[in-house]
């Protein structure tokens, strides 16, 4: 069998049928990505596949004060997952316009989620099959209260596979924050955002798992006609993290703004992978990615923009820049355009650089100590990306994290 070991032992689970059964079958067939799988060439899961991982079956304990406090400071309704299991108490008294249901009971929803999730993707398939907890959130109308999905948990050999399917009805509006802050061995959330006609989602994700956690997130987005998403991810945690997002522009005049910052130090590995599928004409997408890597950290950016033959008038932009703070830090960048339509505006680019010695000298010549001067220049490198987040409530969750990373030394 391909893959060095199977995780987890799906044979121990009750037999699955339907969509989850199919996912389990694909997982059994494919297993972990082998050395020749192109999309995993820069991100190897060798350490993970050697571990004896057990899908979490029980909650680990009390909610951390930090996550709860962050939700409170945003005025958000908190939906907490502990070891990948949703805390049912959080589903009572949801904000008006939001209803929750169990995904495991809803084959139609499961199948719809599978359609928008990354396809033939080992981690996405695995999480769909294992699904430590499955939640559908239906959103109707304009929801003023932000939702926060908080993913916590603990366990040296635990793997968590929460699956959340968020559906915005036509013209709905939602603000949502994902906060991933566990100490489990593997956190593998699968999250789908299905955005209906004219609906809008403003979303941020903060990945600050422990430095022993492997975070492999699969996110699927579908945009109906005139739907829009403004999404932003900040990835600072984990020993290895991959944030993989697949977006399908399914209706015309949809707009997708997706930005990400990844920051790594020590021996961290930070991967941001996106697939932007312009399936129909007249849609816009814009991705701004910034990476900062220190010590022996490694960064990966893979971004593909696919424009279907009849997706004329597509405007697809992606720009990835990385800043290496140490001679031993590395980044692999692979921006790709795959265009089959002829009347499009598409641009992509990737740059890798170091801090500018002249700028650093200018700052230190003013008496600013070098560590502070370096942090100022790194912040300057990131600032336009964070400032581009229009939703101030959501931006407020990320800004202190980026700042504390910069002042934690090593910058």
């Amino acid at each position, binding site marked *: 069998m391909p893959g060095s070991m199977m995780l987890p032992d799906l044979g121990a689970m009750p037999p699955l049928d339907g969509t989850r059964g199919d996912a389990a079958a694909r997982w059994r067939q494919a297993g972990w990505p082998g050395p020749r799988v192109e999309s995993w060439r820069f991100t190897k899961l060798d350490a993970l596949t050697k571990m004896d991982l057990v899908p979490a079956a029980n909650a680990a304990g009390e909610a951390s004060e930090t996550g709860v406090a962050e939700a409170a400071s945003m005025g958000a309704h908190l939906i907490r997952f502990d070891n990948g299991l949703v805390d049912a108490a959080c589903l009572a008294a949801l904000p008006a316009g939001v209803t929750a249901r169990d995904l495991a009971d809803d084959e139609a929803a499961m199948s719809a989620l599978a359609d928008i999730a990354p396809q033939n993707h080992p981690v996405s398939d695995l999480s769909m099959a294992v699904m430590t907890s499955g939640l559908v959130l239906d959103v109707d109308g304009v929801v003023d209260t932000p939702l926060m999905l908080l993913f916590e948990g603990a366990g040296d050999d635990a793997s968590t596979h929460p699956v959340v399917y968020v559906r915005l009805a036509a013209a709905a509006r939602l603000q949502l924050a994902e906060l991933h802050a566990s100490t489990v061995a593997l956190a593998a959330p699968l999250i789908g955002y299905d955005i209906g006609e004219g609906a809008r989602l403003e979303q941020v994700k903060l990945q600050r798992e422990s430095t022993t956690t492997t975070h492999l997130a699969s996110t699927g987005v579908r945009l109906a006609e005139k739907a829009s998403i403004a999404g932003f991810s900040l990835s600072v945690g984990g020993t290895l993290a991959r944030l993989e997002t697949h977006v399908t522009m399914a209706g015309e005049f949809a707009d997708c703004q997706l930005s990400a910052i990844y920051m790594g130090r020590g021996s961290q590995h930070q991967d941001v992978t996106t697939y932007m599928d312009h399936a129909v004409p007249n849609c816009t997408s814009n991705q701004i990615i910034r990476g900062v890597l220190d010590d022996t950290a490694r960064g990966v950016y893979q971004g593909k923009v696919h424009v279907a033959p009849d997706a004329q008038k597509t405007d697809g932009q992606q720009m990835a820049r990385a800043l290496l703070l140490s001679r031993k830090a590395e980044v692999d960048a692979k921006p790709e355009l795959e265009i089959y339509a002829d009347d499009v505006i598409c641009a992509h680019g990737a740059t890798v650089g170091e801090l500018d010695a*002249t700028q650093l000298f200018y700052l230190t*010549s*003013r*008496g*600013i*100590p070098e560590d502070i001067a370096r942090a100022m220049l790194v*912040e*300057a490198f990131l600032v336009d990306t964070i400032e581009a987040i229009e939703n101030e409530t959501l931006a407020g969750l990320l800004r202190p994290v980026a700042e504390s990373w910069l002042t934690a030394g090593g910058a």
Partner: protein
Amino acid sequence: MTALLEIRDLHASIGDKPILKGINLTINAGEVHAIMGPNGSGKSTMSYVLAGRDGYEVTGGDILMNGESMLEMEPDERSRAGMFLAFQYPVELPGVGGMSFLRAAVNARRKDAGEDEVDQLAFVKMVREKAKMLGVSDEMLKRAVNVGFSGGEKKRYEILQMALLEPTMAVLDETDSGLDVDALRIVSEGVNVLRDPARSMLVITHYQRLLNHIVPDFVHILADGRIRKSGGKELALEVEESGYAGIDDAA
């Protein structure tokens, strides 16, 4: 009395190339010295060596400030000890807000002196006052450091930093380059206001015209990495008339 700045037989190289070949210069508190010299004489190298820039290697001699050698000090330490370099080409810092930059610089100095950080409102008020005098607009203060500034604006912004940091030893590297007559007057007035019995200045320039505005106590002619001639302010006029070619090597 210990000199504020004493440069002793200073030799410096960029890479393998010797640029400064034995500079001797003593500057006492309150004095304004001018260094004049043709292109390639080592003027800018001297300013960078004083500020401690990487890549400018001191191969001999010493630089003493208040009797203490600065050679082992990093640029930020030199600055906090009272050294200031007004850059010939001020550096643009996209993304670094002007106010937070100025505040970081002032606070670094205060922290070193064991003082509290500046009160934000009081600081903004102080910056605005000094900025107004130098013709630095509020709009410039809000922008990223030096980004989108004209040549003259950049020079005024340098002098604003000098006014805020209150150095004891200010080195002005070709502060007149790129300035029109009006800007030259504004910048010079800004500098003259800062003349003080406790503050010394080293004005590096190619042309005599700056020295009509910032009148030096002493003028030195630098050529091929050495000071060839020293004198009073009248030496600058001599250069203006006969050019550097006429400077006698027997300084």
